[in-house]
């Protein structure tokens, strides 16, 4: 296990980058703590795989250094970094038994025989593969094969880190529940440094203690699941985390007021007016629909009943504003939007700004 330090890391696939936009990964400084569970979360093309490849050694960054426990490994090959990787698709040997597959990474490293059987038996138990242990991998289902891939990544005790690249993509939703839960358990039991790349918020937030959200080559927030939900540092985080995501509404601010077109919204904190583009962010969970006089008149455009809640899509001065109603809560006639002022975030040029009390 190791602490992994990213020291002014940046990468461009263009050998002579001119502008910021030429960088697939913009400059990043960060310490991955020893034994931490991290997720790299973002849409396709955000740079998360580039960052993973820099950590694993498949890619040498155009700029900066990467250190394992303080030692510079920037120029080291992947096999010299002592890292385990689990990929999107199972990488196992069909002609070997489950047990042989799990033992393979240890045999390669000349681990003693009784140590191998101890580790492999442990792994078979935590993965619930006891009844299949001596069967050939050929003929197992996709999720059983992927479980073996996970096991092969986890079976080595001396790795600096385990990297997962969207390991649950090929798994059925019913099985995903079990494997997500299993990975979390394994981290708790084994304490490896784990970095998990995904575009799925549930996988990221469930697995990780700290989530690194990436957008257009930039790390826009590193935080706990609670922090990402309550105080997204960037409008993209607000939009990407949560279903539906945070409402982002263009506005102007002055003191404790935000103006959306002709509508005024009261704020808990005071903000200075700015030339930068300003947005009000509020999650659909923190808006209520009330009949009566208080609140902001809004036009209801659609109501989607999805069982345990309803998404009400409203129009406020030309902006779509989503509201979440809990099961059984009716949509009132002539509804008004009531914002919970304590849950409003203000953004300038897409970045969160703090108001003054």
């Amino acid at each position: 296990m190791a602490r992994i330090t990213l020291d002014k890391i940046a990468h461009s696939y263009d050998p002579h980058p001119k502008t910021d936009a030429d960088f697939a990964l913009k400059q990043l400084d960060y310490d991955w703590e020893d034994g931490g569970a991290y997720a790299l979360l973002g849409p396709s093309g955000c740079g998360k795989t580039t960052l993973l490849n820099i950590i694993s050694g498949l890619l040498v960054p155009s700029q900066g250094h990467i250190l394992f426990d303080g030692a510079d490994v920037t120029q080291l090959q992947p096999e010299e970094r002592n890292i385990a990787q689990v990929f999107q698709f199972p990488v196992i040997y069909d002609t070997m038994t489950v047990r042989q597959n799990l033992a393979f990474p240890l045999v390669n490293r000349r681990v003693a025989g009784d140590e191998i059987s101890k580790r492999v038996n442990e792994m078979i138990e935590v993965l619930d593969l006891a009844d299949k242990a001596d069967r050939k991998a050929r003929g197992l289902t996709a999720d059983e094969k992927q479980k073996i891939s996970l096991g092969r990544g986890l079976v080595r005790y001396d790795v600096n880190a385990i990297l997962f690249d969207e390991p649950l993509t090929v798994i059925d939703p019913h099985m995903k529940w079990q494997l997500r839960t299993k990975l979390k358990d394994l981290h708790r039991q084994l304490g490896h440094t784990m970095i998990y790349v995904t575009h799925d918020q549930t996988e990221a937030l469930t697995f990780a203690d700290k989530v690194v959200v990436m957008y257009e080559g930039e790390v826009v927030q590193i935080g706990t699941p609670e922090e990402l939900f309550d105080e997204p540092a960037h409008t993209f985080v607000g939009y990407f985390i949560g279903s539906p995501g945070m409402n982002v509404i263009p506005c102007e601010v002055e003191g404790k007021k935000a103006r959306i077109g002709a509508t005024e919204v009261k704020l808990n904190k005071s903000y200075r007016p700015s030339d930068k583009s300003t947005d009000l962010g509020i999650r659909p969970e923190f808006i209520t629909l009330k009949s009566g006089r208080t609140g902001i008149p809004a036009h209801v455009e659609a109501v989607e009943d999805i069982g345990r809640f309803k998404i009400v899509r409203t129009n406020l001065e030309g902006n779509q504003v989503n509201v979440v109603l809990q099961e059984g809560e009716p949509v009132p006639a002539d509804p008004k939007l009531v914002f919970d002022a304590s849950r409003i975030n203000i953004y300038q040029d897409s970045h969160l700004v703090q108001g003054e009390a």
Partner: protein
Amino acid sequence: MLDLRNVSKRVGNSTHIDSISMQMEKGSLNVLLGPTLSGKTTLMRLMAGLDRPTSGDILMDGKSVVDVAVQKRNVAMVYQQFINYPAMTVYENIASPMRVAKVDDTTIDRRVREAAALMKLEPYLDRTPLNLSGGQQQRTALARALVKDAELVLLDEPLANLDYKLREELRAELPKLFAETGAVFVYATTEPQEALLLGGKTATLHEGRVTQFDETIRAYNQPCDLQTAQTFSDPPMNIVPVQKQGRQFVFGNTKVAAANGAGALADGDYKLGIRPHHMALEKPTGAAMKLDCTVSTTEITGSETFVHLKSADVGLVALTHGVHRVEIGQPITAYLDQSRLFVFDSDDRLVAAPVSGAGGEG
């Protein structure tokens, strides 16, 4: 209208599709919901004419199409694994069915651009598919299916390989498009949440049988049996085996009143079903069955937290609002609200359902 009458497909000794009958209107969206291997793709291949049913009949607007070759049918299909013409640009990929149908250039241009705007493909129209991400390639395939004036559009887990945010947006847009084209749309998915977001009607599939075919929200609120309830629940519905004794359901040393018409049921063995979001971790205001549990694990979806529990060897899942960290192994009390219980008899048929589930006052 697409009309399936007692359609079965057998291969050797195994039955892949077991006597399915369903009628799908023009301009309607019909979701096939079930896990992998439940028969969704097999059923779609029968609808498309790629395979022939062993018995039963398939009619389009009253005429049997079982003997009509797939090339002669006006069907569009989109698969989970995106398929495009690699040598053509995105523009030409989308335009291709209209080129075949000899549509004039002005109309082609307008419809390609409309479909591209909807699928957020405008910047990529001049590229070839292999220079696009997986999501962009699939959106190209979807756009092509939309512009082809097909009378039957079959979508086999079309969003499975896309980012969930893109899925979220497309799910909201697709039903509107479906209604506009007037085609019969059939959409296969393994995800209950996706079926609910799409709306329309849903057929729940289990081992080649349709267990229920109904308005989506109705199938969710009034599943006819335990299998349908399980198919239509992610994570699975919590099931607690109980005994009915007099006016009460009893589980171990805890009990709850039999409400919602369940009071009249005969004494005996039943199963109580409760959805994860109705499994409370704080005492509800009404009467509830109290279960002593330990926390197995927690999962966070962004705006909600799933807490996995164990009570006397029964695994349960509770969904709570917001983001919570609960310690693993911690003892906790969970409550089954009596007004939220589905009751299944010993044959797994639904015998009582929560009244509030129908969308009224909660």
